[in-house]
């Protein structure tokens, strides 16, 4: 991953910083410039909850090159306790143990690395709560 793009996403990937529309109260993750609901451009920063519930998931058995050594691995949509849905890798449990409705929490993990000499990219994954 190009360092500048990774760096731009650090507040979201490391700290799960979202933005809440000051006019209608809707929370966006990742942040947006204009609220699609009310067209407001004013937002306040909020930090998302670090626990949630698994809504749905899929198991990747043929992964892209950076993830080929991790197969099979699960990707899921998780509804965090503040109502925001995120897409995240689910780790620290076997794919056949994963069930929709299970409680998950956020952990800080290495997401990928740019070959043997490039940058290491960190961010959030979900583990059983």
């Amino acid at each position, binding site marked *: 991953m190009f360092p500048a793009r990774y760096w731009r996403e650090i507040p979201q990937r*490391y*700290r799960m910083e979202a933005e809440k529309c000051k006019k209608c109260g809707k929370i966006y993750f990742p942040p947006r410039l204009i609220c699609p609901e009310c067209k407001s451009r004013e937002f306040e920063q909020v930090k998302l909850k670090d626990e949630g519930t698994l809504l749905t998931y899929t198991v990747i058995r043929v992964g892209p090159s950076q993830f080929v050594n991790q197969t099979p691995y699960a990707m899921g949509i998780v509804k965090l306790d503040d109502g925001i849905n995120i897409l995240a890798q689910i*780790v620290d449990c076997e794919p056949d143990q994963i069930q929709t409705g299970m409680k998950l929490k956020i*952990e*800080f*993990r290495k*997401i990928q690395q740019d070959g043997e000499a490039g940058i*290491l990219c*960190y961010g959030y994954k979900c583990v059983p709560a």
Partner: protein
Amino acid sequence: MVGIIGYGAYIPRNRIKVEEIAKVWGADAPSYKKGLQLYEKSVPSPDQDTITMSVEATKNALKRANINPQEIGAVYVGSESHPYAVKPSGTTLAEAIGATPDIHCADFEFACKAGSEAMFVCIGLVESGMIKYGLAVGADTSQGAPGDALEYSAAAGAASYIFGKENPIAKVLHTFSFMTDTPDFWRREYQFYPRHAGRFTGEPAYFKHITGCANAIMSKANMKPEDFNYAIFHQPNGKFPMRVGKMLGFKKEQIEPGWLSPTLGNTYSGSSPMGLTATLDVCKPGDMILMVSYGSGAGSDGFIYEVTDRINEVRDKAPKTRYLLEHNKKYIEYGTYAKFRGKIRMGE
């Protein structure tokens, strides 16, 4: 008075048993278990390293400290397995907890005592008034060469401490450092695995420095082993901390609460700091704790802590270390361990 205001630990869930390693190399598992008093060790997943474990341990420390991370004035990560050769681990940690940009940051390295070094420096900076809070982490995902004795013990884990002057959990009463140039364990530039000097790592290295530091700090404090409720010594295996404790005049009961190595392994820079987290999990207000680290090369940092009433308020705000050690374990075979630890040469 400066003291610990928050502490936390982190242990990966994977474990490998001594028998599993021994059978690959044709070694005698019972003699390793008896000789090292070591039964299994933690193994990081491929997506875990010193940085990720430091972040998780620090999140637990922040839950107990209950402070604004923006008020932390220094972040120091001690490790011999920093993921980058050039680029600090501490910057990622500080960013992940929201402590940037007004903060001093450095990575420390001194074999297994890099974590206690970070604690030592934070205590000094807080005591001097230069910073309000200091964050010190000891974390490692250390490697032993395949088949080497170190492969049975080199493990993964992290401990994080936040120091401050207000409402400490444990007051820092005394510190002491004892250091000489002793080449008992090393890793040269570009080498993947460390090397050690066999039995030379014992008497002139581990035992000399820990007893030297422990006796000096007890003399400075005018205290004897029986004045302490608990003692934590660096844990390269299960045997050494018990033996050095006995040499100094401590009883098994004083050491056992922080004695994690038999089922955790040697977490290097995390070792004695993690033993302290397990001890804080069970201690009472007024208890006195001696902690002495050891880092090859070689040196020891000593600390005397007095536990305060606040321990009962914060202890349950984050997972306890024994819970992390015993909960949700997954035993892996040597092949998976070799894959996880990057011991297999891959094609392009």
